[in-house]
């Protein structure tokens, strides 16, 4: 053996940022203009969502600062616009820009929460399905297939309806968020489960799993310590693409009036509210949130597409 340089753990960790920058993934990101643009826009959205109260020029939830006299002001550059409200105001006098920033926060938050929930559920069921096989696998996969034969939005609507009818008409406020998140994640877990199941079946036949079994390790140890880290690659891709879908689904639900409560409007709620005024000339109330939603959905989606291609050696 050649004299290997002695690497301590702290040293190798310090080199991790450097290693990431040198990695093929980071290289392919730098090379792709679309990915960089989508990445920057997504980052801007995330940043705005995180620090919404600091960035937004007004606080749309602060009833005291909202004046009904400011209602229906057009964007600043249009005749009659007010420089305080860059993108104009809505029907109750809230600045459209501020509502968009706060709305993005709700949209992204609900989207992320549902994807995390969907991924957790899907990955766990996929792992069990792929590893245990047999009847357990058959039951889980039949449920998944039945669900796949309906459109996602229909599933989300159905689940939303069921939960609401169970909780009764009093279910408003914060509970509504959890209902939406649950509905969306139950609509999207199937993708995760199917992919993880397939990857698990490939990985479990490899000999490091046999070695763990010879060493007398339990099935749950093998599933979560050995298999889980090795099936996470595709999960990352699906999570990103699902995030775009979840955001749009949440907007659709909110647009239909079954989403988040109107007191804390998401982009979808804003579009619905603005929709009433579209033909009376106050177009900005619905158009700007619409554009914001489209750009957010598109950039997250493009990021997901790039990630899928970059991690798939066959498409390289």
């Amino acid at each position, binding site marked *: *053996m050649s004299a290997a340089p*002695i690497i301590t753990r702290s040293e190798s960790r310090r080199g991790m940022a450097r290693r990431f920058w040198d990695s093929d993934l980071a290289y392919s990101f730098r090379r792709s203009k679309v990915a960089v643009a989508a990445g920057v826009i997504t980052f801007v959205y995330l940043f705005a969502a995180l620090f919404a109260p600091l960035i937004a020029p007004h606080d749309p939830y602060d009833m005291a600062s909202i004046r009904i006299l400011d209602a229906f002001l057009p964007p600043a550059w249009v005749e009659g616009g007010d420089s305080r409200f860059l993108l104009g105001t809505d029907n109750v006098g809230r600045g459209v820009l501020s509502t968009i920033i706060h709305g993005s926060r709700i949209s992204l938050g609900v989207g992320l929460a549902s994807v995390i929930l969907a991924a957790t559920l899907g990955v766990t069921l996929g792992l069990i399905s792929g590893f245990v096989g047999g009847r357990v696998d058959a039951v889980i996969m039949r449920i998944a297939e039945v669900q796949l034969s309906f459109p996602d939005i229909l599933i989300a609507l159905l689940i939303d309806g069921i939960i609401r009818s169970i909780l009764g008409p009093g279910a408003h406020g914060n509970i509504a968020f959890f209902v939406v998140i649950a509905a969306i994640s139950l609509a999207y877990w199937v993708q995760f489960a199917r992919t993880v199941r397939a990857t698990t079946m490939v990985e479990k036949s490899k*000999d*490091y799993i*046999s*070695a763990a079994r010879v*060493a*007398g390790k339990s099935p749950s140890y093998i599933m979560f310590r*050995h298999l889980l880290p090795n099936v996470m690659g595709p999960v990352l891709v699906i999570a990103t693409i699902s995030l775009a879908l979840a955001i749009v689904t949440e907007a659709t639900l909110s647009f239909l009036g079954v989403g988040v409560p109107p007191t804390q409007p998401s982009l979808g709620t804003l579009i619905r509210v603005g929709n009433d005024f579209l033909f009376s000339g106050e177009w900005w109330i619905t158009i700007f949130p619409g554009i914001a939603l489209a750009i957010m959905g598109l950039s997250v989606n493009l990021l997901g597409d790039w990630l899928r291609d970059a991690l798939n050696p066959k498409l390289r």
Partner: protein
Amino acid sequence: MVHKPILEINNLRVEFPTRHGTLVAIDDLSLHIDPGEVLGVVGESGAGKSITGAAIIGLLEPPGRVAAGEIIFDGRRIDTLADGEMRKIRGRHIGAIFQDPLTSLNPLHTVGRQITDTIVTHLALTKRQARARALELLAEVGIPAAAERIDHYPHQFSGGMRQRVVIALALCAEPKLIIADEPTTALDVSIQAQIIVLLKKLCSQHGSAIMLITHDMGVIAETADRVAVMYAGRIGEVGPVFDVIHHALLPYTIGLMGSIPSISEEVDQLTQIDGAMPRLNETPPGCSYHPRCPEAHERCAVERPELIPVDRSQVACWLYDTAAKDHDPPPPRKKVKAARRKRTGTTGASPRPLIEVRGLKQYFDVSPPLLTRLLQRTGRRVVRAVDGLDLTINRGETFGLVGESGCGKSTVARTIVGLHDATAGTISYDGISLSTRQERAKNQSYQYKMQMIFQDPQASLNPRWRVSDIVAESIPESRRTSSGGVAARVDELLRQVGLSPADGAKYPHEFSGGQRQRISIARALGGEPEFLVCDEPTSALDVSVQAQILNLMSDLQRRLGLTYLFISHDLAVVHHISTRVGVMYLGRVVEWAETAQLFNNPQHPYTRMLLDAVPDISKTGTHRTQVEGEVPSPIDPPSGCTFHPRCPYATERCRTETPASIRSENAAVACHAIEEARLPAWKAA
């Protein structure tokens, strides 16, 4: 030489530009092939053998490119030709045979159509004439009932038969040169022998020259006229096959030949070349072999040697540079075998059985789903991977288990360590029965005494785990008293297998194949086992690395008193490492005996056939007896003695009655012919 070479390569350089800089895969390589000659190109993986072949036929994978030098085929420079021009030469004048016969045929076309299409493309023949020619070729490559088989699809042929079709395809336009890239590597020993004989015969009949690329010195020894030894993108030595194999000049070749186990001699330790071939991006300056070379001196580290003619060979090594006066005259030619030591005798203590396997059966149900079975009115289909196997392994010995692919040897290994639940039969460890899941659960402490080493060093280590975590995995809970204790034990284990404790912080992909196999061994040793099941532990490794691992295993056995079950398809490796050997055929051990006895005086016709078929460097230039037939499917094994369809001594009784094992003192064999004493004595080679 008077005649003009058919292929001449001058100062070829192949580069792969990457974003980390340009990798030079082939550097300043020159060689020639004469008409009708078989040039063997050998070297370990990464030496650039296949890239040389691909460069000749103009099929380098992008971004690879010929950066300098020239390739002259039949007096015409071909490396600068346009794609269209090259296509006319490829197939017509230069044929190609690749390693995997499954992927080199189009699964959607019949073999007849593939051959006729190629003939029509290259020769001025009509479809009808081409088909007649295809038929002729298929018969010539030894496909029985060619007239019927011509309309079959590739999947209807077995591996060996497919490779015959590929040979027919390569020969169909009567090319002057055939590039054969590892043509027999994917095949079983007995099939491999058939293909070598066929390839050599046909090429001499058709007058084609062959560039035979392989890592298997045995194949080269029997087939090639001249041999070129490649190392790190350059030719180190080239010369007549006998000279290179038996009187090598280059220190690398000497080491390489010494590291190959042979079935004809017994040695205790193989010659070992430490280290591994440098990666393309870290080729050392000067002679690229100097960091591993026992004869290296200062000049080797700075100046790169060119090929120097010595006798009938050429060698790139400063040892033979007679022009330089400043160092000693070249050393006398070394007899390769002198470096080896004779095997020391086994200890005379009376054998104590450690593992006893009785009547082991392992069936796998491969039936289609119930509904399909009902619709197609077929019954269940069962693979009888292991079918009534008896085995006794004594404490402290190495029991070698050989057989061709599909004979069930890996299943035996997996069933013994408890990865499969046996269908029937008993397995006992030191007198404790561990045949069923319940028994294994009851005697958990024995689980740790049996560990396993796997074939593929890539797949047997979790790629997301650090080496220290991988090695720590098999340390039993009871010994994990403190975290510091585990870390100290991991360091000790890594040292035991020749790695440094600092390697524990790395991930598996940072290691070479041989080092990964060391990690795998360290993991197996974690539970302080007494018994290691090794399932083809060296078949994915290069010969020089294989020698390192085999030596390490013998070393560990001596120091820790281990018992091995060593499974391999490679007779030479089994011969080298085992004290006793069992030969498996279709789920049964047909013969077992002490190693020397089995190899010097094989009884069972199948054992004899295998020994006849194995390519070995000691057989340089000799002719072989060809073995007919292929391994039948374990789904539908032949009746009676399963070997009877291939056995030259089969009688009516063999077809109907399964032979029982005849025990003698230190051996057993299951054969009616031996029982009836109608088997001729084994002629010693």
